[in-house]
């Protein structure tokens, strides 16, 4: 029996809950399970120190996602500017007096939790840009004047993240924002012009990069340049992955991982570890599950009420953000991109990313559960 929704009718909590996409959630759980399994192996067949923790965090993430999904979409529209400026403030705090880790300042230590404002900023920029574009006419978007404000919205936080310095995240934010500009209808030639400008400025930008960032790029281009130092990670990751073959060396039997040749096997390089033990088959499973997840994202954007332009923009933005995570991470560990320190969400060990990704999935679901009604501005 089809439930006849009155357009624009508010849904009860129960209705909203049953409107969730459970296949989507099931795939999330599947990916998280793969993550825990790999972390169990990474610890040499132990739940501690990673697998159990990760499970608990994922449980927390599910909670965050459900709460975010039950919140009405109007809320996100309303808080977008406030959230944006608050996050910008946090970024400033980190830049000025952030916690030092790995030579970069990225966290605010909340005691029980290390808050990474750049993670929040990914959400905030998507919300704020979506809000801007939804309130701007198509004609204005197509003018130069119409994209000055959104450019500033993007440029300021990207600059803040860049000086942390966190090249990976700032590039991710930049790509994500570019996707939104593109979706909003900004003309092709403007992207081409921007790209040309960046290419022209590249030598200058190169000058501003930190040595370790330059090294990473140079090493990516030629790992043999420094086989004992920076190139070691890339070479060993390739060996781990390649030696996995079609079906892998078996669970708990990855020699590269267990004998510690593979660096960062529980964080950034977890995809390599999984592929060493489960081969190309395992790697393809992870990629396909993620592709299904991303396809659902596009489906959500397509499915929600056509009058909810803001929602479509937010979903596509967050979806693109997730895509970038997966693509950049996998591409970097298999040697297609420089190693920039982007984790594989849901699988890599790390709390912040799980929570922020689950929150973004929650927001996407929030629009999806209210798919048949307009957004009340």
């Amino acid at each position, binding site marked *: 029996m089809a439930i006849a929704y009155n357009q624009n009718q508010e849904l009860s909590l129960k209705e909203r809950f049953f409107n969730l996409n459970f296949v989507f959630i099931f795939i999330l759980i599947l990916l998280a399970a793969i993550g825990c399994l790999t972390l169990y192996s990474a610890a040499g067949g132990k739940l501690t120190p990673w697998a159990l923790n990760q499970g608990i965090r994922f449980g927390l993430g599910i909670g965050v996602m459900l709460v975010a999904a039950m919140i009405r979409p109007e809320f996100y529209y309303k808080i977008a500017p406030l959230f944006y400026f608050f996050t910008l403030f946090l970024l400033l705090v980190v830049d000025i007096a952030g916690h030092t880790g790995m030579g970069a300042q990225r966290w605010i230590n909340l005691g029980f939790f290390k808050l990474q404002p750049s993670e929040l900023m990914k959400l905030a920029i998507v919300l704020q840009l979506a809000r801007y574009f939804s309130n701007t006419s*198509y004609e204005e978007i197509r003018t130069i004047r119409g994209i000055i404000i959104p450019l500033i919205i993007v440029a300021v936080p990207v600059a803040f993240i860049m000086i942390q310095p966190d090249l990976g995240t700032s590039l991710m934010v930049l790509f994500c924002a570019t996707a939104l500009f593109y979706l909003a*209808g900004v003309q092709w030639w403007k992207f081409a012009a921007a790209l040309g400008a960046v290419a022209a400025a590249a030598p200058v930008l190169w000058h501003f990069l930190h040595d370790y960032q330059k090294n990473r790029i140079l090493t990516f281009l030629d790992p043999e340049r420094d086989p004992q130092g920076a190139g070691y990670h890339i070479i060993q990751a390739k*060996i781990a992955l390649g*030696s996995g073959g079609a079906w892998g060396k078996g669970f708990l039997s990855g*020699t590269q991982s267990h*004998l*510690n040749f593979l660096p960062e096997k529980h964080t950034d390089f977890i995809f390599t570890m999984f592929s060493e033990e489960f081969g*190309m088959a395992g790697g393809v499973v992870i990629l396909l599950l993620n592709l299904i997840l991303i396809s659902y994202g596009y489906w959500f954007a397509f499915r929600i009420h056509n009058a909810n332009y803001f929602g479509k923009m937010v979903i596509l933005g967050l979806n693109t953000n997730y895509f970038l995570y997966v693509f950049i991470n996998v591409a970097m560990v*298999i040697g297609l991109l420089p190693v920039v320190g982007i984790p594989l969400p849901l699988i890599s060990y790390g709390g912040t990313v799980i929570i922020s990704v689950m929150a973004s999935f929650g927001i996407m679901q929030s629009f999806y559960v209210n798919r048949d009604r307009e957004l009340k501005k």
Partner: protein
Amino acid sequence: MRKSNEKLRILLKRSLLLFSANILLFFILIGRLYYLQIYQGEKYALLADSNRLSTRLLVPPRGSINDRNGVELATNIQNFQALLIAEQTRGNTDSILKEITPILALSDKDIARIKKDISRHRRFVPVKVKDNLSWEEVATLMINNYRWPGLVIDQGLIRYYPFGKYTAHPLGYVGSVSEKDLQNSDAPLLQVPGFKIGKSGFEKTYDESLRGTEGILKYEVNAYGRIMREIEKIDGLKGTDLDLTIDIRLQQAAYDAFGDESGAAVVLDVHTGEILAFVSAPAFDANLFVDGISVKNWNNLLYNEKTPLTDKAVSGQYSPGSTFKIAVALAALEAGIIDEKTTYNCTGRMKLGNHLFHCWRHYGHGKQDLIEAIKNSCDIYFYEVALELGIEKIAAMSRRLGLGQTYDLGLENQKAGVIPDRQWKQEKFKAPWQQGETVIAGIGQGYVLVTPVQLATMLARVVNGGYAVTPTFIKNNNAAPPSLNLKPEHIELVKKGMFEVVNGTGGTATRAKLNNPNVKIGGKTGTTQVRRISLKERAEGIKKDEDLPWKYRNHAWFMAYAPHDKPRYAVAVIVEHGRSGAGVAAPIASKILEEAIKLDIR
């Protein structure tokens, strides 16, 4: 509304494009996986294996070197090492070191070295605390082992020469592999840290057969080099033992017979040429070299005027002096110049042209036949004989008797000595041979040089009835040595002469008689001038050899054989700067032969 539709239309259109791009990028990733894991999978599988698998060579035990009765002269003994694994000490490294310091007598320098080693290596790498532990040290450490976690006792094999200085020549010693050794050989064992190879003597000559075949241990390591598990172990093969003809009992007796003197002695079995004792004194304790000799010990050996590092038995070249008269006598008998009745009158001097040659006995010996001339070592007799014989025949006989050549002894630095003849002098000095040179060659002076092993060989060849035995350290059951075609009556004549030297009234070496009255020996003395006493020294009152400093005094020879009637052993003894063959060398030779007879070496 149219405008809003346009905005939505472009959003949908572009999101479809973006979605397609996402799918495409994912398939690029999958393509890359295919490339790395399937297309290049085998290459990376090999790389992963070479990452994790490591092999270590297992050093095989070195073959032992034995004497003729199977007594080990060079062997391998357990070497106990105390090692400390920092990772296992539970942070008590300092207190453990403090507790074991009195037990192992560690110095502050040792402690500093150990701490430095610990800080320089990964924490699971065992660091050497002390080498060559005594049994007491091992026992004390073992009993208290529970108190010192991380302290382990490791055992290895180390080369050991039980007879030390007695066998340093000719055994030589082993030592660490040098850069040069590595250049000369690509044997993988040489790369093993701490591996020892033969550096001199037989240890060097027979190094490859003594070395054995290496074993292989295959194991898995992690990225930090820690051994995770053993995968495969192939044991090595012990090196081949080397059995020598030396009798260590005789060797020791011969060495000890020298006391503080410097010299050499070679004892041969006259029928087989087997070397029963081979002494160069003084020698050194070869064990000092195994672990690397200290600079102080090395300098003591290097700058010692008695040259303990030189194997004088094969590389010491000396004028044979009067011992050479045996060769001259045999040559003259064969040439028919003399027979047993031929006599020369010794007046103490002989004039040749305007040069005067003296007998060692200033007032002369009077009328001498061959046996008397040998017994008294009359120089004039042999001047005359040599002069008639000519240098070529002397040289030919000398070479037949084994002088002027090297032997396949397996020893380096073997010298050939010099047996001069006309051609030799022409090549060497571009000058014709002088008659006077023949005269002094007749008494083994001048250009003639021999080594102790050559002189022993010469004596063996004479007293065994004229068979060309070759000196050897390796037992050989080869066919009988070729005959030199010497006439038995000639041999009997010179033997009679040598018998008289020891046993005749007024013989030159009557002191060489054995204590054993049942065994008679024969022999011949020799004294060779190292430096003439100069006129200036004569003026200062130095008239006799013993007044000169040690290094200018004469060398003393004595060669002897026993028993006289049925010879079995021949010995040649040189005592450097021993002044007189009869006084110093003869008693040593006598002691050696006495011991050989007593041992009845088979």
